[in-house]
């Protein structure tokens, strides 16, 4: 009888590499270049242009100067003053993204979008129809290039996280002499997984942040290979049971997560970072009015209603607090969100200066299900119908056709919405509803 090896209780790995991770190359910038071909070959940065904006995407020419996404825009300007800075057009990116995702869904229904510009695909079932997974990967790249004039990089592996690392290896790289093309498709066959992982730095693994990294370095672990060589018990002793076991599995090429199509949003929210700190409750209140309007409109657009309302406040010193309340019944109207949000904001003293304000709703359910109130039975429909009327007016006449009166100014009405948002310190994820809060640490 053979002794139970350390790998005997590990989750099964697929016999062949059939999971794809597709990542668009410099997506926002590439979309901008489609519309502005004159900027091709120049350093281009998409992101917030205010004092506190951050970079959402940078062309490979800009990356050669050290500019990368999530970097403060001000720093990007210093590194690469000659770059062209663009504010970003969410709607345009979303529109292109929808078409790209539709191409993915032609290949397999098992598409799990992570954000506008990346997705996992499980092509195990598509192989019989379309050939082996690596061929599908090449076919996908060609179709996306052909139909959208955009390039993407594809990783093919037996698990999600190895596929993601493989797409990283497939990407073009910035260099002082211009972008160097990558291989475009990198396939890591299951039997090559350990060899592929071994030389990578441990921080390439999902879940290794600065704190874990420091602990691992103290243990003499710098590469994934070092980590894989450690007995699981040592890792559990150093990092705790769940983290230790998790990293042990990953380092040995195991990732039990399946590709999950149609991940449902866990929360819907809106937040903004301000160019200058706000100290007045009245200013924040006006912001909240706009946020409630925007969040309610999104809830209705997605046919959802939520019970838990959360207000997030980040002060000038980056201290961040959240306050939440759970309502007796799910809501999708701005008046209810505002009412709850105000009560939460009452618990916060804005006088130290508020840098970021956010309002979000979780505990989402189908909006069709709603606890009715005695008042509306007696008086007829209230804000609920008003909200739907607002939606209809906006659908016909545009977002700024109607909105809360306090958002009006001398130059007209400016309602809040994703399309208006500057990329703040939180980067893209801050305004990305479908991934807010439910995204693993490997996202981004």
């Amino acid at each position, binding site marked *: 009888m053979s002794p139970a090896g350390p790998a005997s209780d590990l989750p099964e790995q697929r016999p062949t590499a059939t999971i794809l991770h597709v990542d668009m190359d410099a997506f926002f910038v590439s979309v901008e270049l489609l519309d502005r071909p004159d900027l091709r070959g120049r350093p281009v940065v998409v992101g917030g242009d205010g004092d506190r904006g951050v970079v959402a995407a940078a062309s490979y020419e800009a990356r050669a100067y050290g500019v990368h996404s999530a970097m403060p825009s001000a720093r990007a300007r210093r590194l690469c003053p000659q770059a062209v800075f663009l504010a970003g057009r969410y709607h345009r990116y979303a529109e292109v993204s929808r078409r790209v995702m539709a191409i993915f869904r032609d290949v397999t229904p098992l598409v799990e979008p992570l954000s506008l510009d990346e997705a996992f695909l499980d092509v195990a079932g598509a192989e019989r129809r379309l050939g082996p997974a690596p061929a599908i990967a090449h076919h996908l790249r060609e179709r996306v290039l052909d139909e959208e004039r955009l390039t993407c990089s594809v990783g093919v592996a037996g698990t999600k996280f190895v596929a993601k690392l493989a797409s990283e290896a497939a990407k073009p790289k910035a260099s002082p002499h211009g972008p160097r093309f990558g291989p475009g498709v990198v396939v890591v066959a299951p039997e090559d997984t350990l060899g592929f992982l071994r030389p990578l730095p441990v921080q390439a693994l999902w879940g290794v942040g600065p704190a874990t990294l420091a602990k691992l370095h103290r243990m003499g672990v710098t590469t994934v290979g070092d980590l894989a060589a450690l007995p699981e018990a040592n890792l559990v002793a150093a990092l705790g049971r769940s983290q230790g076991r998790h990293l042990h599995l990953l380092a040995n090429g195991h990732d039990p997560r399946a590709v999950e199509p149609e991940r449902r949003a866990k929360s819907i929210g809106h937040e903004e970072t301000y160019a200058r700190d706000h100290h007045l409750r009245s200013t924040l209140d006006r912001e909240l009015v706009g946020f409630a309007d925007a969040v309610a409109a999104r809830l209705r657009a997605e046919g959802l209603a939520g019970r838990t309302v959360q207000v997030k406040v980040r002060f000038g010193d980056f201290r961040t607090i959240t306050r939440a309340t759970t309502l007796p*019944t799910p809501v999708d109207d701005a008046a209810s969100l505002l009412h709850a949000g105000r009560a939460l904001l009452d618990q916060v003293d804005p006088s130290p200066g508020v840098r970021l304000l956010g309002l979000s709703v979780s505990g989402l359910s189908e909006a069709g299900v709603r606890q009715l*109130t005695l008042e509306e039975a007696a008086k007829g429909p209230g804000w609920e119908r008003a909200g739907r009327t607002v939606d209809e007016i906006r659908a016909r006449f545009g977002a700024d056709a109607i909105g809360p009166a306090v958002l009006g100014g001398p130059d007209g009405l400016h309602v809040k919405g994703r399309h208006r948002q500057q990329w703040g310190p939180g980067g893209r994820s801050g305004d990305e509803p479908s991934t807010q809060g439910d995204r693993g640490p490997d996202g981004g």
Partner: protein
Amino acid sequence: MKFRCERDPLVEALNAASRAVTTRGSSLPVLSGLRLELHGDQLQVTGSDLDLTISVRAAVSGDADGVAVVPAKLLSDIVRALPPGAVTVEIDDDEARIGSGRSQFAVRTIPAHEYPQLPEPAESSVSLDAGAFAEALRQVVAAASNDESRPILTGVLMAAEGDGLRLVATDSYRLAVRDLPGTSVLAEGQQVLVPSTALRELSRLLSSAEAVTLRLGERDVAFEVDDVRVTSRLIEGDFPNYRGLIPNAHPNRLTVGREQLLEALRRVRLLAREATPVRLVLKADSVELLAITQDVGQAHEELDAKHDGDELTVAFNPEYLIAGIDVTPGDEITLETIDALKPALIRGVDTPEFLYLLMPVRVS
């Protein structure tokens, strides 16, 4: 101040008064304390958050009269932890010494003059039967709102109704109305709004009592039960016109065994998760209960019942429905409906003194 008494009655008095002491930070630090006042052999322990005050009398053997304020939590914890038997409490200028046997504690007191002047209860009083009042509170108080942002709805309306007293509460999803005929407490046309928090505290005291004395003042109301007095500030403002919320007629009436329906609902509720409702399919001689939670599962149960009216499906929040049926008296109850979007009325057969109006959950 100095007195001796048995540990257990003292623990009881301290615990009862502590329930009015706010655990959240108060604007007045002195309110984190219990006020002790000794006259002869009578100790009065008072806790208050200004809205709610609970005052307890306890018989002790007094040595020296006085007034002091002692940190509530610490004092209760100490006395509760002492060995059973006699406890000695001696308080001078700024220190309370609590001892029993060989255990001795010294606790810094809070200056007694900082304790706010609390309203005196009204002179005139009315006595109510504790059992009937307790039942009425049990039926009504749960329907009051917990949402502090709508203070009016956190109260229970006490109103003169005919020759009796009427209690009403609503959180806007349901409405409970209970009449206590023959209990004249208020002048004709008079009505007051009492915080449900105070009535919840009162409910805890009523189970062992025979009578409750009510003293109604201008801005507050006091309830006295044995040695405990619960005083509450009244809520100012107009209670919603609840009569206008109750439909004049319901075309459909289901009659069903109360206990059978309750038990079935408690079973079916297990599959009504994440705010999904329970659906009631009302048929001529049965009612079907159905709960479906997406990605979890479903439950179904059918009960014999009598239904006069159209076949119809109505969905309710199971918690609200169960709470209402639970406090409706009688072996048989009626559920009267108009349609899936209008308020439903729950009453006991032959018990006109209580009604529970519940709004459905809309399922599209």
